[in-house]
């Protein structure tokens, strides 16, 4: 398969998954969302009539006017149709894709907007900041530690790392997060227990404050996953270190260090890159809980809170945005695998 075809195939797959998710979301939450929109319109009309200058003869006239207005607006926004007609579904899918989901009942941005799109876009960068930084740290530590234990296969360090990897993999990340809060926030008072900065976002020191509050979540994410990472890197490297071309290089007199870091690691590059990408993608999913525990003001925390108060527009929007992020990460991973591995590109 050529590079072009691979790309095409992957993009097609990506859109298929995206539509599948959208479809499921709309089917599951569509009717609830309808109800909420209808209620919003009803309230709006009643408010307009109460505030407005229109005069009515009696209450009957008033209520019939309100009803007419409501029905009229239902028609405009397509709410008069049954929830599951095809045109309705398409309409709804488009409105989800453009994040045109109206207003949230419970949440606002730092600047007071209650538009669902604004709220979500405000949170996305913070989630990306935390989880991308964590993934980069974990990858770097993992590669160095993994290479080290791979070069000392069977040593005490190697065994310790394998054991640590198995253990750290068994613990839920969010549980470790709670322990970290007990240790570093409650007992040692080094970091705050709540990761939402107290200073206002317009403050010039806000970003520094944000980074300080990010430290504890970051350390937690790194501690939980670096062991497993080093183990994966070690696994790939040991497979490669046993290959003939490495033995050949060794007989040529090239130093072990050079072989390890230059030749073996380079060959292990593509699978490692894939694993990095998949881990990053998976961590966006896990973000819902980790962020909720740390109170980190990202998408995950918003998701958690939105579930708590059943804010459907936010839930729908976040499901879509997180799916998109997830798929883009997987897509980039696939492409980088293709670019890194000459065998895939060539054939």
């Amino acid at each position, binding site marked *: 398969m050529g590079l072009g075809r691979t790309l095409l195939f992957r993009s097609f*797959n*990506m859109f*298929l*998954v995206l539509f*599948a*998710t959208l479809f*499921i*979301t709309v089917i*599951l*939450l569509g009717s*609830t969302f309808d109800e909420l929109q209808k209620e919003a319109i009803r309230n709006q009309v009643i408010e307009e009539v109460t505030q407005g200058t229109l005069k009515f003869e009696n209450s009957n006239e008033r209520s019939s006017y309100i009803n007419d207005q409501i029905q009229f607006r239902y028609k405009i926004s397509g709410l008069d149709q049954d929830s599951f007609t095809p045109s309705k579904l398409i309409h709804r899918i488009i409105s989800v894709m453009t994040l045109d989901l109206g207003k949230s009942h419970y949440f606002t941005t730092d600047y007071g907007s209650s538009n669902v799109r604004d709220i979500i876009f405000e949170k996305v960068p913070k989630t990306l900041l935390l989880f991308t930084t964590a993934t980069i740290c974990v990858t770097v530590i993992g590669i160095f530690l993994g290479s080290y234990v791979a070069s000392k296969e069977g040593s005490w360090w190697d065994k310790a790392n394998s054991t640590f990897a*198995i*253990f750290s*993999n*068994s*613990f*839920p990340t*969010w*549980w*470790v*997060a*709670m*322990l970290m*809060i*007990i240790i570093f*926030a*409650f*007992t040692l008072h080094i970091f705050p*227990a*709540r990761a939402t900065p107290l200073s206002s976002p317009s403050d010039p020191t806000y970003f520094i404050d944000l980074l300080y509050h990010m430290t504890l979540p970051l350390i937690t994410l790194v501690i939980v996953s670096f062991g497993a990472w080093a183990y994966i890197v070690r696994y790939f490297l040991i*497979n490669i270190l046993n290959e003939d071309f490495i033995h050949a290089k060794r007989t040529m007199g090239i130093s072990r260090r050079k072989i390890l870091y230059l030749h073996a690691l380079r060959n292990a590059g593509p699978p490692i890159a894939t694993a990095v990408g998949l881990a990053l993608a998976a961590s*966006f*999913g*896990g973000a*819902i*809980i980790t962020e*909720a*525990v740390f109170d980190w003001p990202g998408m995950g925390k918003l*998701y*958690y809170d939105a*579930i*708590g108060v*059943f804010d459907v527009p936010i*839930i729908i929007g*976040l*499901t879509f945005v*997180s*799916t998109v992020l*997830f*798929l883009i990460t*997987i897509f980039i991973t696939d492409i980088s695998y293709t670019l890194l591995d000459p065998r895939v590109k060539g054939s």
Partner: protein
Amino acid sequence: MQKKLLLGLLRSRRGIIGVTIIAFLLVLSAVAPLIIPIESYFRWNDPDYWINNPKTVAPFWTNFFGPKEFEHLSLDKNDAKVSSESSEGTRVDNYTFQVDMQADSFPDDMMFLYSVKYGDIPPVLQIDINRPDNNTFTIYYSSLPPTNNINTSFSDRIFSTNENIKESLKQYESLFNYSISGLEPQVVIFSDTNKPNVLKGMYQISERFYLFDNYSSVEDAGLILGGKVFGIMGTDDLRRDLAVGIIWGTPIALFIGLTVSIFSIAIGLIYGVIAGYRGKRTDETMMRVNDIFYALPTLPLLILLSITFGRSIFLIIGFILIFSWMGTAKVIRSIAMQIRNYQYVEAAKLMGQSDLMVIFKHIVPQLLPLTFASIAIAVPAAILAEAALSFIGLGDPSLPTWGQILHDANTADAASRGIWWWIIPPGLMIALTGLAFFLIGNTLDAIANPLRNKNK
């Protein structure tokens, strides 16, 4: 092959550790109904059931590491020494509780429970405290409220903050070398008369009921001394005994983990075999569907499903199943593709056996050992998924699962309040269970997986 698997499992150290842990968890699940009342399972969320426990206190063994805190004491009439005497038509029922006070700190509170059936003449209740220094404090003397109904019993609890008790204690003020005004009654009762410390030793606390007619009777009498430590795992904000929750969580976690993994592996097995055996178009289509499922964001969709359809444990098992069969399907498919070309399979096909026969008689049996390994490996993920859903607050709210306990802990801000005993045990149980199944699965996989053996 099955024998080989079992032997291999018991020969590897990791396998033995895994089997030991699982055996422990199974025994714990089996004896759970015997060692703790079943009612605690059904009334886990009912605050009335836990009313006699202290609120948010540490496990008793923390006493070994610091000052000896008072351990919560909850006594009922079975713990009391009962005596009865009667004179001139008055019957006196006496319930005496022995309290061995050895702690360095005072009880947090004190409660006297009783339940009495009586008619027109209300009985009188007198509470005496006989102290190790031989002083006897009569701290309460009062008649019960009048009643019209002799068929129902009157139940109440007297708290140590009761005015009657406070007033009664004032008459003993002179016994103390220091001022006791402002001290709480349960502190005064257990105080040394010379210095404001705990007076250690044996206390006799008796509830005397003066009954004035024959059909009056004492149904129940009890004493609760609120402590700062309780049980082997402490209690939470709702006074629930966390040890009970942890024990009930075990069978539930095993049930969820095993059910999800067995079904998901079964689905994956059938799906993978069909795709691998049929090959060509069928294989391509089925693998495309597999890819799509693989790329779906699991947690958000689990959340949506759980919000829309409900949170019963069986629904949740079903939802987790939807997202957990794809990995197995992929592995099984690639192995099935190899087996398809084996000569005996070809022979069976030439003999005119149907596809279904070939799959179930010749291919699936070959895959069974690997299937066992996959089942064990799939358990931790299922348990973690349920715990995660519960933690978000979308688990089955009626069950005491480990995830649910952690959810309650997080809602109550247990981490930033430093209530470690609410957080550490459930997480450790999740990790321990996951670890055990992982170790077993890994050992079995090393024996049974042809793909893995080829690489070595």
